[in-house]
């Protein structure tokens, strides 16, 4: 049984005087024990909404209209609040994008970690909890004496590390990290990603990483799902998606992403994402896709390429050929209205 199973998830944001926004439409994926899963997409693709749905932390005007989210067999969408609160922290923990969002400015780091432990674990003494806090800080590469520091006394990188320490406090089985290093410099990013990886190995926990950065995913994840316009476009292993992609959007993202390894022509994807207040009935990528044909206006088929590799595409051109021409700039300029 997978640790996390999202099945046919639909999330709608209701708006008073405007049409509802269909932010997530039929998303399904699984995260196994001991697996690093990357959910990749650009702003507005719905990836953060998926995370909020998993954590049952959607805003009041959002509704899950269909689907289920099974964590270890329990459907998070139907569980009572009290059970959800137990699962969050103890089994699923969250590393937010901005460290300050995860820290209380008026308490010391040590006190915040200690309280997290004492709230969720009965019978842990104050001294034992503080000892654990020191241990965790050391694990993430912070001087244990920093337990007495306030968040503002730490640098940005240290705060982010402190948040990671807090998120690990109860040995969670699933860590959800939403752009955990986006605000950080590359050297600190490397330090933190390396630490997270090490800690995960020690704890045997899984990670769901949400990011726009395909290079971070390539270096940290086992499996990837690419999201666009509220839907999944392609899922597979890092090798399958980077070396044998079967989707024009995945190919487009790769072409647009610079690499320090080589100087090559970067090719943008023209146009902008669909308006999810009026979502298309067919493939959401159609207006920007250089390969789209009339058939692409039909609902997306799910194609299993091989074991573990799935694409949602009408295959308007054989995929092998598509990979060939997708790297060329001319492909993306023709017949698409400029951005």
């Amino acid at each position, binding site marked *: 049984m997978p640790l996390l199973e999202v099945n046919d998830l639909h999330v709608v944001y209701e708006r008073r005087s405007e049409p509802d926004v269909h932010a997530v439409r039929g998303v399904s994926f699984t995260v196994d024990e001991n697996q690093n899963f990357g959910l990749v997409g650009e702003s507005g693709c719905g990836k953060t909404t998926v995370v909020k749905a998993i954590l049952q932390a959607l805003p009041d005007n959002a509704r899950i209209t269909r689907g289920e989210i099974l964590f270890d067999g329990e459907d998070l969408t139907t569980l009572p609040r009290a059970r959800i609160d137990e699962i969050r922290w103890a089994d699923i923990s969250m590393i937010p994008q901005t460290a300050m969002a995860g820290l209380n400015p008026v308490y010391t780091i040590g006190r915040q970690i200690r309280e997290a432990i004492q709230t969720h674990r009965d019978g842990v003494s104050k001294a034992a909890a503080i000892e654990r806090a020191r241990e965790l800080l050391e694990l993430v590469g912070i001087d244990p004496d920093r337990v007495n520091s306030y968040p503002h006394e730490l640098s940005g990188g240290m705060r982010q590390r402190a948040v990671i320490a807090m998120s690990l406090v109860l040995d969670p089985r699933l860590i959800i990290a939403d752009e955990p290093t986006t605000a950080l410099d590359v050297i600190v990013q490397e330090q933190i990603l390396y630490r997270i990886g090490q800690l995960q190995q020690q704890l045997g926990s899984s990670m769901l990483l949400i990011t726009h950065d395909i290079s971070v995913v390539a270096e940290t994840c086992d499996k990837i799902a690419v999201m666009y316009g509220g839907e999944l476009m392609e899922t597979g292993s890092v090798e399958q998606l*980077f070396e044998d992609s079967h989707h024009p959007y995945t190919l487009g993202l790769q072409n647009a992403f610079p690499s320090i390894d080589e100087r090559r022509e970067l090719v943008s*994807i023209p146009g902008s994402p669909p308006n999810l207040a009026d979502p298309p009935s067919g493939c959401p990528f159609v207006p920007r896709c250089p390969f789209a044909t009339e058939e692409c206006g039909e609902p997306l088929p799910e194609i299993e390429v091989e074991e573990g590799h799935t694409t949602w595409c009408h295959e308007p051109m054989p995929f092998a050929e598509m990979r060939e021409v997708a790297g060329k700039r001319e492909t993306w300029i023709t017949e698409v209205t400029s*951005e």
Partner: protein
Amino acid sequence: MTAEVSSLDRATESYDGPVIEADGLTKHFPMESGLVSSLLGGETRYVKAVDGVDLHIDSGETVGLVGESGCGKSTLGEVLIGLQEPTAGSIRFFGQELTGDVPRDRMRKFRQNVQMVFQDPYESTNPRFTIGQWIREPLEIHDVPNKRERVLTALERAELSPGEAYLDQYPHQLSGGQRQRVSIARAIVLEPKFIVADEPVSMLDVSVRASVLDTLQSLGRELDMAVLYISHDLSLIKQMCDRTMVMYLGKVVESGPTDDLIGDPKHPYSQALVDAVPVPKAGNRVNKPPLEGEPPDPVDLPEGCNFRPRCPYATDVCYDEPTLDAWSADGGARHASCHRVGDFDPAHIRASDE
């Protein structure tokens, strides 16, 4: 004074040196000291944001300035285009001195010929101005003729085409990529000789970054501008820049042709920076970083080499402050401010990881 009016024009015609040059450029910010300590006569301390930088950029050349947040790269950009007064050092524009007692007309000409493209396309446009008004404003400030024609040319050059379609639009009607193109159009409408672009695409979605960068790059060549491209992202610098300078704690620690510097960095800090950049390919896993911790505050700088306390190769010789030409190669095209280049093998630090 009247002779000064056209001196820049004359200078640019016969001049074939760098567009912009700086020597020993320094910007120190005094720190707010508390009331008590100032009453007690406490010494004012300084943040050494830029601490003795030499540089030059030729026309048509794009130079990358890379470093982590707080290294002083944005301050350096602002000092170079006159948004900040330098504490010390010299800046020359087409060979003419811009610091000290500068004739007003020379300064005016300079301002007309330098521009900046900022990071945030949402904050660097004015929501109450139409695109046309916004791009036209610099022309009015400098009282340049043929305004409408120039605005349209700038829009087309920034690849907002046809330009007429954008004139009466407001920023909120445009996407992030289009807004950044508007910023570019405004920056080039006076056909400046020198542009500083400070993280111009970091707020944009990946899929539109490439085309905005492309526009900047080709404009640099087409208009023969000197471009200083400031970024924390070496992957983008690799695509954009002819030469690159690496900055650490207010100083340039390495400079050279981009491909050489990234392919074979010499300064231990540049090595760590290059090493840390993730690669969008299968088969690269995040590895143990060669550096721990973060740069110290640029207030209490270490004795000798700034990088010494974090440097895995530091020895006693590093208590002596190295200059940028402590190491140089390729006939002076490459420089690194490190005494120990060649004495250490970056591979062995990796090997001793586990």
